[in-house]
């Protein structure tokens, strides 16, 4: 295997899906790539001055402006007639929430930029606070369960649909547990003459609370339960989904994570489990995940 473009020695946690995801993305994109990252775990774990894990040109500016910064990079590449990939790699906080204005602008202006969101479903860098990506009932430090709370009261924001509403020509969901699929999607996205968006399921060991050795298995379960459909949209049309051979109940996915343990402590949370199962069932039907 060729040397990774993300050098070892970074400070990410053991069992974190983020560096694995980034390595897969960079493997597919290759060295002729400029990466723009917002503030977040990726930035702080890979660039403690004067060290850097990045073997491609990399720039971080602020939490919410990666898409605008990348737009400036991309117009200069076009001006210089250079065929270099521009890839944004950011977490869900910057992607779903604080960076939404800049993301919308970048999508709408049609820059040739691949946006990869490593989605760990909360603000992990600041200590596991709820984001717009946090799923229904998940415990975070700002959606703690209590006598009046069963965790996050809202469903996850549908970011791929937001990208599609901007007529982004290539949109996909992916998972760290499906590396061949992820690499294929990155390569497909980079062929597109315009913006593209890939949202990767990337478990966070401290935020989701699981055994480090089960990270890949956990992300695979997210797919196999129907909670994280692997899909691909080309020019606005659903172009492919990963079929599930033997769908698993959401309970299998939820019960091995600390962020859902409150659902299993008392018997009165059966309603919540049923509601989460209903989300998975709706995905199964919408994407025809099971033959």
């Amino acid at each position, binding site marked *: 295997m060729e040397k990774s473009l993300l050098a070892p020695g970074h400070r990410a946690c053991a069992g974190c899906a983020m560096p694995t995801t980034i390595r897969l993305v960079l493997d597919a994109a290759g060295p002729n790539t400029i990466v723009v990252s917002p503030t977040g775990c990726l930035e*702080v774990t890979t660039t403690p001055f004067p060290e850097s894990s990045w073997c491609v040109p990399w*720039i*971080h*500016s*602020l939490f919410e402006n990666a898409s605008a910064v990348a737009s*400036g990079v991309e117009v200069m590449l076009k001006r210089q007639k250079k065929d*270099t990939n521009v890839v944004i790699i950011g977490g869900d906080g910057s992607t779903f929430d604080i960076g939404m204005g*800049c993301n919308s602008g970048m999508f709408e202006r049609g820059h040739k930029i691949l946006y990869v969101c490593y989605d760990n479903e909360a603000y992990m860098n600041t200590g596991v606070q709820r984001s717009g990506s946090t799923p229904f009932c998940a415990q975070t430090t700002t959606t703690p369960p209590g006598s009046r709370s069963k965790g996050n009261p809202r469903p996850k924001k549908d970011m791929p649909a937001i990208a599609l509403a901007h007529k982004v020509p290539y949109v996909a969901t992916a998972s760290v547990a499906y590396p061949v699929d992820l690499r294929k999607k990155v390569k497909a996205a980079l062929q597109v003459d315009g913006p593209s968006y890939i949202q990767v399921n990337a478990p966070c060991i401290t935020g989701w609370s699981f055994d480090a050795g089960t990270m890949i298995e956990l992300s695979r379960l997210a797919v196999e339960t129907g909670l994280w459909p692997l899909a691909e949209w080309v020019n606005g049309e659903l172009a492919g989904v990963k079929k599930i051979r033997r769908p698993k109940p959401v309970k299998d996915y939820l019960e091995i994570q600390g962020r859902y343990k409150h659902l299993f402590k008392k018997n009165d949370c059966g309603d919540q489990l049923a509601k989460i199962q209903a989300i998975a069932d709706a995905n199964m039907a919408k994407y025809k995940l099971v033959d």
Partner: protein
Amino acid sequence: MSQINTANMKVVEGSYAVAHAVMCCKPDVISAYPITPQTHIVEHLSQMVANGELDSEFLTVDSEFSALSVLVGASAMGARSYSSTTSQGLALMYEVLYNVSGMRMPVVMNVANRAMGAPLNIWNDQQDAVGARDVGWLQIYVEDVQEAVDATLQAYKIAEDPQIRMPIMVCMDGFVLTHVYEPVELLDKELASQYLPAFQPEKILDPAKPITFGAFADPSTYTEFRYQQFDAQLKSMAKIEKAAKEFEETFGRHYGGLVDSYFADDAEVVIVTMGSVIGTIKDAIDAMRKEGKKVGLVKVRSYRPFPVQALRQALKGASVIAVIEKDVSIGAEAGLVTDLKSAFYNSKIRMPIIGFAAGLGGRDITIKDIRKIVDKAEAARKGIESEFEFLDLRTEIL
């Protein structure tokens, strides 16, 4: 200032004159969001790009925050970068302002100075830029359209100097200068190119030589980043003077370097201020001089870096100083008067310094107002009654 060759002058709108100056600077990337009274500048630039007169990438973005963020990426690619904004737009950029200066990106931006809301007010004062005095950008304040034109070209020369590499705001009073039609000598493109050679960036995002921009710094290195910015600002004082001198050699015009003076040498009462109110003050001084009053003016052209030595030199003979400024530091005094007092505290020069917040939210400052301020300054020589006040406060509506 020096004489202008009137034969080459044209009557144009201030915003057009500035846009023409920007065109002569040949920026690679322009990124801006419309906000009154900056709009005409970017509209003219858009038309120049549309007509093929200006070969720039012009990005029409979703906010001022995005506008300046685009220039972070462009500048990291080695672009000569330009934006323009004002007031609320500058406030929305605030986070990026620190980033651009922290990453030592020589962006130039015309700020069409305007009041800050609430209450909403689109008219001129300088609260927007003075409020951003600590973000690391150099700030040049101009007195008329011609100086706005000339300072814009000079700004790139200073910003892109390898020893400086700092962003610059060229601050021009909104409406008063952006929307006025007055005779201006537009820049000659050839001369502008001679004066301002192509930008030579040292470090860029390049796959052939990958480097990391915007790493995080812990307590063991953060102070040194700040120190280097501070040091660059201090060094930029000589560069500002040099850029003005070289500009005079090329174009024959000079508006002062760090500061400029008008009848200040023998003056007893000296007014210190920034921006377009200087025209009114000069008229008032002319009238008062005829009456035998020893009144003068010192214009602060560079507010950041703050030219302590140049101001001590220019003001050492004054018996009393009256600072007129279009901003307030709510709960204290105001930017310029506070900075000026601090410039004198450790010197042996002593005179009363009083401050006036005037022209806020676009209220006119008249010759009568200037006379009133001079009277108050003369009275302050015998004892200061009020260190700082709001000029012409309408107490009847309070």
